[in-house]
């Protein structure tokens, strides 16, 4: 029993260790005119208050998959809430239909795909994934 539990524990540790190492940064398509976003602007875009970029263009936020450690890290750093709280928030709003949660990517790869495909998209990636196809518009302090 002890033996069977140990690998699972290790996975968790790895994942979480990977989470610790993960450093979310907010990025846009490198072709986008947006150079930088404030934290408030990022909050408004991701939590559905305003879906516009500073240049007036519609912004399309993209969330990492539900289970992604990056996702919970991102919201923790952005508004200091855990994912349950974020979900509860969206649960109150979804009903009225006035606004909607960000686009849900099925995987991390899909996020990059969606980003590359649209200059309006805004997403978050681990710093390691942010290559020259993307532009970092907001970094969280360590």
């Amino acid at each position: 029993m002890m033996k069977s539990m140990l690998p699972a524990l290790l996975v968790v540790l790895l994942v979480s260790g990977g989470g610790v190492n993960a450093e979310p940064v907010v990025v846009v398509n490198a072709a986008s005119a947006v150079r930088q976003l404030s934290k408030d602007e990022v909050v408004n875009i991701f939590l559905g208050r305003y879906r516009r970029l500073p240049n007036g263009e519609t912004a399309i936020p993209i969330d990492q998959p539900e289970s992604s450690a990056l996702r919970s890290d991102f919201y923790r750093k952005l508004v200091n809430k855990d994912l349950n709280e974020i979900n509860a928030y969206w649960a109150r709003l979804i009903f009225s239909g006035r606004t909607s949660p960000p686009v849900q990517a099925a995987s991390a790869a899909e996020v990059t795909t969606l980003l590359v495909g649209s200059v309006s998209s805004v997403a978050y990636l681990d710093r390691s994934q942010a290559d020259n196809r993307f532009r970092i518009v907001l970094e969280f302090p360590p």
Partner: protein
Amino acid sequence: MTKQVWTLRDPLRLRGLLLRSALTVIVASLLAGIVAVAYTAQGTSQRAHRASETRLNELLDTVESTLAVACFAKDQTLAGELAQGLLSNSDVLSVRITSEQEVLADMGRGPAGGPQPATLLNRPIYSPFDRQKQVGHIQLSPDPLVIDAWIREEVWFTAIQLSWQLGMVTFAVVVIMLLFIVRPIKAMSDRLHGMNPAAGERLAIPKTHAHTEIGQLVIDINALSDSLVSALATEHQLRIQGEVDEKKYHTIFDNAESGLFLIDRHGVLSSWNPAFARLFDIHQMPVNGNLSLLNVRQLPWQNPDRVIELVQNALHQNRAVTQDLQVQLQSSQRSWVNMVLRSVDNNLLQGVVHDVSHLKESEASARQLAITDPLTGVANRQGLEARLHDHVQDYAASKSGGFALLLINLDDFRRINEGMGLPVGDSILQTTSKRLSACLKSDDTLARLAADNFGIILNHITDGEVLERIISRIMQEIRQTCFVDGSPINLRASMGVTLFPSDGFDVPQLLRQTELAMDSAKTAGGDNHVFFDPKLTEAAEYRRHLESDLRSAILHHEFVLFYQPVIDLRAQRLVGAEALIRWRHPTRGLISPDHFIPLAEKTGMIVDIGLFVVDAACQQLLAWNKQGLAYTLSLNVSGRQIPDGLSPAKLLAVVQHYGIAPGQLALEITEGVMLRDIEQSLQWLKSVHAMGFRVYLDDFGTGYSSLSYLKLFPLTTLKVDKSFVQDMQDGNNEHTLVGAIIAMGKSLGLEIVAEGVELKSHAAALERMGCHYAQGHYFSQPVPEEEFCAVAARLTALLAQPTV
């Protein structure tokens, strides 16, 4: 009757007390209730609003997180749902939710124009992700109707509670009042109605009230009754005493001999006694028919103004004022009354009046007597002085007029009085006074000053001629023979005259000067008049000084004896001397006896001086005797020294004291001495002669030179007066006269001394005439004792020369 009324009104009065206290309690409670309800309403309203606010806040708290989400996401649907939920609470009247720019929800209940809510509950809504950031706000208004209903309920409850308490308290007060106050007071009141305090009845203390205020009230009422009863008794006693006193004062008032009256400040009489009415004959006076308005001014005063003045004085001075006032009454002799007035209060004066007519009459007669001479009926000295003062004052006021003052003294009046008796003297004075009076005008004054001294003031006399005429008339009147009991008497008078104002301005001085002039007339022999001369004053002054100096001279032994040698012409030798007195005045030097002996005689000081002379002479004789010189000394004796001033016994005592033989002492007297009182003088002369003293008659030839006296008196020696001797020349009258005197003296067996020998020829002539002794300047001046030895030696030498 009164008692009945009291009983009828009694319950009402008591009920009144009860009703009043109950009403007071109700009104006071109502007021307190209203205040309490108002306060409660106020408090309840505040609490209701606070509670409503609290509930709404709590309501908001439950939906706050959802509200934050709605506002953050600007979700109107969500906001509308929340507002709907809030409105389901009955307290909420309306809800309004706004995001930053837009209204998310605005809903309300009831009609739109309903009552405006009193308060609004505002709450800001913050972002669910950032507590610092406001994303909207909610406004809730509570429903006022709900709150009001709640307040009304609270107030109503309080009011009901208070009413209930009020009813209880009022009931309790009424019961307590009735039991503890109204009932005992009613009992006391009932008892008081039937009580007779004068008979000693008193209230009893109600049961159970022994230590309450009611009990104390009963004690106080009883004490008050006691003091009232005692005050009534005292008052009664006083009233009886007052009646007795009033009766007494009435008796005094009615029976007083003095007039008593009361007047007001204007002089209107308000009351007077019978004596007052009698004094002024009030019942007979016509007072315009109205006796009650009689004014004191209207009484028959001689001078009503003085009465008014007296009334004013009494009003202004707070003391009794008095004055003698003259009245005029036809029906009586009364002429003077004395009035005393005193103000008894501001408007009332009390007065006393009595008849002082008799007093005034006796005063007047006494005044008249004081200035009248009772014997002659003319003025006396005081009267004259008073008139003089009046005249002087008149002159001082008008600076015109003037008068002559005459003083008249009858010559030799004393002799008439002594010789013929006082009644004759009085009769003469009366006659003289009549005669003088006949010479005077009506405004002149005649007075008898003393004894036979009369004074006359001739008023308005300034003309010397007129004055002389009047004076000579007066003198003539006096000289007329007057008959007393049939015997004729011839009177003469000496008169002094002064004139005012030329001789003096001061009355005493004027009188003194007139007296001096009169004395001067008298000294000049009488039967004449002398006008005052300032020299008379000087002389009088001189005499006054001399007199005091003389007294001091006797005290301080300022007298000395000078000696003039007497020569025996037959034996041609010195046999003695005449002792002559000199006065060594400390400032004026040597003074001769002519200047002071007359004054010494007049004042009697001659007696002391005479004794000194005898003593000094005896001392000198003793000194000579001791030197073996048997001189004789003669000394002058004045008439004033005879018989007692230098009595024979005194003389003898002195010579015996010094051991001198009386024969060595000669006493020189003048004829005048013998004329004074022959009997006494003769007695004295005989005594001293019998004792062995020698007696010289001095100044022979100048006076009477009566031969019968020469025979009558026991004399040893005659002194020929120097006036004959010093003028003696061969063959002239004096020569003959001296010879005759010497011859006559010798024939009577007397020794002769010649005085005033000034020349050698005198001495020779006298010697030839057979004169025994001589003295005079030819031989020697009178010299003091210390020079006498030298003079004696010189004389011895002179006499040794052969006579021519």
